[in-house]
């Protein structure tokens, strides 16, 4: 197919009511190209963010509409606008003296003669009068790839039905983030991402499920109905761990494992990261280290069992800590005793259990139940478990590097409310900060789901590979999400024009160019089916199974 024929095919929808096409009349690589719309085009059909294809002489360019402009070739048009705004004159003036122009930001280019390779970022611009039209389905596939193993269909470009795919392999190589105001669809998007990772088998997930919405039965606020969790869709690939067994059972779920944390498992670092939420002074937090040195592994229980002013005084003088700081620490830490998952007796096996599942390629969702409402409990448990898992992964990886055993399966840890413990002050102390910075050195990455990205440490934000951003309207949040991205000003306008539901701006390593998407449906029977779920109670499927049975066994 030569380029003209190809272009004719592209223009097929120009005849549609909202179709359009145009030619390049000026512009630059940095400021975007100016495209004059053809006279039969409908300017109302052009939308900012739309993906377009530009047919250059030797290259085909792909870009995005960044602005729509009304132009006039007659400077005095406004003076006699009334005269010519009616009858046939209005039709004559439209597309000639008064015409539509759009700005297109070129992003990628590919040699017309070699469309089998993947598009590279655009380093030049197409010449004057190159034709511009809305990208065809085949172009979307060329840019983002076809749906295939490792290519997960995440949604469609706005106003298009084409499937836009995310490269899961690239996605799991780095830490990523899903951001958006509360109620903009972060959870649905994250559920899809988790399903994509799970389906691809490129990595296993460990989800710290604060509000118990990923593993079993979530809730759709818009449709007011229950939606299936990962365990319901992929029962053999997902295990649900619970911190609050009763809560899980109330929801009709028997968890695969009930997590218990021994007092002995808590280390001074775990207290350090709770410093802010427990309002501890630096001295009080440091006291935990001194206590650890003094008592050893069982420091917390021993410390909490200390009572009476005299014993405090003597302890304070023994470990050389201010007595006021010590008693504050005691007061705050005694709050731990109300956590039913804390166990005084022995060291528990939760970490090993999680690792056993992960090693078998089974994804683990840890439900927090009632503790989801308690940020301290969430931070404590997530940090504690992650630190140990990370240590084990690091050992495993180092062994693999020295030739003993296989590499561990890449692990993606999903965390929520990250702005509470990945703040600039705490990011250095939490294991999540370390994982985000060290990237995939030890095959562990994090997926941050958060609504206040501006509160998260800049360094952590800068290390995120792919960001999926739903509507954000706080300027600081928008700045922090877009920092370091080229074409920030234009993305900002795209971001602020997102709908508050089911739309997201996606950019970073897993995609060749930033794109605004309508997130794929989740929650309908068709959507479950497209994710590979077959309903065992579905009569049609049952009869098919029976048919298969009789075919196989007679």
């Amino acid at each position: 197919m030569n380029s003209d024929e190809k272009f004719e095919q592209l223009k097929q929808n120009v005849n549609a009511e909202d179709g359009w096409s145009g030619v390049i009349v000026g512009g630059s690589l940095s400021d975007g190209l100016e495209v004059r719309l053809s006279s039969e085009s409908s300017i109302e059909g052009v939308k900012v963010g739309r993906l377009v294809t530009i047919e250059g002489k030797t290259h085909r360019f792909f870009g995005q509409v960044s602005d729509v402009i009304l132009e006039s070739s007659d400077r005095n048009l406004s003076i006699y606008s009334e005269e010519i705004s009616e009858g046939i004159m209005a039709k004559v003036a439209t597309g000639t003296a008064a015409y539509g122009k759009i700005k297109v930001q070129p992003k990628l280019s590919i040699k017309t003669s070699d469309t089998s390779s993947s598009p590279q970022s655009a380093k030049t611009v197409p010449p004057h009068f190159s034709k511009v039209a809305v990208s065809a389905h085949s172009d979307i596939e060329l840019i983002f790839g076809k749906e295939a193993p490792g290519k997960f269909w995440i949604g469609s470009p706005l106003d298009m039905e084409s499937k836009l795919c995310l490269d899961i392999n690239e996605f799991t190589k780095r830490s990523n983030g899903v951001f958006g105001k509360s109620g903009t669809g972060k959870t649905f998007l994250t559920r899809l991402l988790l399903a994509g990772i799970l389906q691809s088998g490129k990595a296993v997930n460990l989800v710290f499920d604060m509000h118990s919405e990923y593993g079993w039965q979530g809730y759709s606020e818009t449709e007011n109905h229950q939606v299936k969790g990962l365990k319901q869709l992929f029962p053999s690939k997902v295990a649900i761990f619970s911190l609050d067994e009763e809560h899980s059972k109330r929801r009709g779920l028997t968890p695969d494992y009930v997590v218990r944390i021994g007092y002995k498992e808590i280390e001074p670092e775990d207290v350090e990261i709770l410093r802010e939420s427990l309002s501890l002074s630096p001295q009080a937090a440091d006291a935990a280290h001194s206590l650890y040195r003094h008592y050893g592994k069982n420091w917390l229980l021993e410390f909490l069992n200390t009572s009476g002013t005299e014993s405090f005084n003597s302890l304070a003088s023994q470990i050389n800590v201010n007595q006021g700081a010590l008693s504050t620490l005691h007061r705050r830490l005694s709050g731990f005793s109300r956590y039913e998952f804390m166990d005084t007796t022995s060291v528990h096996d939760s970490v090993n259990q999680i690792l056993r599942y992960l090693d078998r390629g089974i994804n683990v969702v840890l439900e927090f139940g009632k503790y989801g409402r308690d940020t301290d409990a969430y931070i404590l448990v997530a940090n504690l478990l992650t630190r140990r898992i990370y240590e084990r992964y690091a050992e495993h990886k180092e062994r693999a590097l020295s030739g003993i055993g296989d590499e561990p399966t890449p692990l993606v840890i999903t965390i929520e409310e990250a702005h509470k413990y990945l703040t600039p002050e705490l990011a250095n102390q939490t294991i999540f900060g370390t994982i985000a910075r060290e990237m995939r050195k030890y095959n562990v990455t994090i997926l941050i789901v958060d609504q206040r990205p501006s509160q998260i440490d800049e360094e952590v934000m800068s290390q995120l590979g792919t960001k999926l951003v739903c509507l954000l309207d706080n300027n600081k949040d928008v700045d922090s999400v877009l920092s370091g991205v080229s074409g920030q000003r234009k993305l900002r306008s795209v971001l602020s024009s997102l709908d508050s539901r089911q739309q997201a701006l996606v950019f970073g390593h897993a995609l060749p160019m930033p794109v605004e998407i309508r997130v794929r449906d989740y929650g309908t029977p068709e959507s479950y089916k497209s994710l590979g779920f077959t309903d065992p109670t579905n009569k049609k499927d049952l009869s098919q199974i029976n048919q298969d049975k009789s075919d196989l066994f007679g």
Partner: protein
Amino acid sequence: MNSKKQNRKEKLSKEIIGEVIRASSTEFETQCYDLYGFPPLGSLVLSDDENPIFGIVSHSVTESLDPSRTPRPRGPGLADVKSIYQESPQLKNLLNSRFTSITVGYIQSQTVVRKLSPVPPKILSITRISTESELIEFSSNFDFVARLLNSSFASSDDVLASFLSIAARLRPEPDQYLIDTGKEIASLLPGQMRRVNLILRNASI
């Protein structure tokens, strides 16, 4: 209808109105056989030689054949012009009607070319009004618009408007024809929308 029959019928309807008496590359002047026998302003005519050349009537004049003997008024009191001509039949020989046409194209190997003819028409070639089908074919492409707008005639806009008015009437959707031509005019006259508006307004009356 077969094409031979159609050709014959068209030939019969071809109205010969005069002969070329002055010709240049850009225009030609025809003297009419009949006094006042000129076609309306904006009509499409052909100097029908072996190389037929298209012109659009842009200027018509009636005056004394002898420049030294100009007509004098007969009045006052004679209101009926028709009776004067009846009483003085010699007037038809003393006066003559002529019209100038802007050259807008020619026919080469049965194809209409909308450009200046390589050579002007020969003096005394016959001039005839174009047939409807010739007019429709000629006006189906807008290249002639630029020729008219660029001509040295002071009132070329009015000539264009008159031509468009005639051509539009022959079409099933006259307004659409004016819109399409209007777009061509607008692109030739950037920044002059008021002028374009005037032309189209005159054409649509």
